[in-house]
């Protein structure tokens, strides 16, 4: 896999969620993503950025434009040093929320992405990685 471009954005305020989706949108446009793929990727980014802010108590998003087998794609890594997720399987179920939300963030972002990975260590933080290909 070849890395074409990467940028790290802090996620420490609500305004950063907006910024994360705007940058994600622009990069998706630059890579010639179809509108539907842009929208899915940006929506997944928005959900995960909000999780990083609210549940992870802030962190950052690493956005990468990559190329593999002549296909271009976007990868976003969300990392926080928050309390972590004790039961990932539970957190990936629709409607599960420890906060005041619908509990669609994680499972929804997973459905909207081609690749999804989550690593969490209670007390140390969470890292969620998604990718979407053109």
């Amino acid at each position, binding site marked *: 896999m070849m890395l074409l471009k990467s940028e790290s954005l802090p996620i420490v305020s609500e*305004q950063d969620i907006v910024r994360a989706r705007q940058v994600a949108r622009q990069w998706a446009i630059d890579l010639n993503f179809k*509108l539907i793929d842009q929208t899915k990727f940006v929506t997944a980014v928005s959900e995960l950025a909000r999780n990083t802010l609210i549940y992870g108590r802030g962190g950052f998003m690493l956005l990468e434009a990559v190329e593999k087998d002549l296909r271009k794609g976007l990868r976003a890594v969300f990392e926080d040093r928050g309390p972590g997720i004790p039961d990932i399987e539970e957190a990936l179920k629709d409607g599960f929320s420890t906060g005041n939300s619908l509990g669609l963030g994680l499972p*929804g972002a997973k459905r*909207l992405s081609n690749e999804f990975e989550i690593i969490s260590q209670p007390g140390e933080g969470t890292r969620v990685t998604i990718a979407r290909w053109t």
Partner: protein
Amino acid sequence: MERIPILRMGDFLLVTIQVDMHDRLAMTLQDDLTRQIVASNSRGVLIDISSLEMIDSFIGRMLSNISLMSNVLAAQTVVVGMQPAVAITLVELGMSMPGVRTALNVEKGMMLLRECLDSDDSEVEDDAS
């Protein structure tokens, strides 16, 4: 403070969301609309989201809340102009947006609101007779 303008047109309130909303702005709109429904005795709310390029679970819930709250306040809410890519993404995300009525555009949305109003009024007449 940043706010999304709410226009009053007769019995209805009109809102056009043209900015990429951060969460607090969405919450403010929800509060402003419910307050405005009561203040101006509105019977219907029309929310134009044709410029919205993305609806995530937070914004989706805000739209759903506005619809449910307006119902409790005896007003109908119609959300118009959702882009197809946004609609497809919402379904995949798993959002069902309970209570939200939709129409393809502002014109059809206004028609729907008027129809709702008329049927409400005739029900009242039926009850009276």
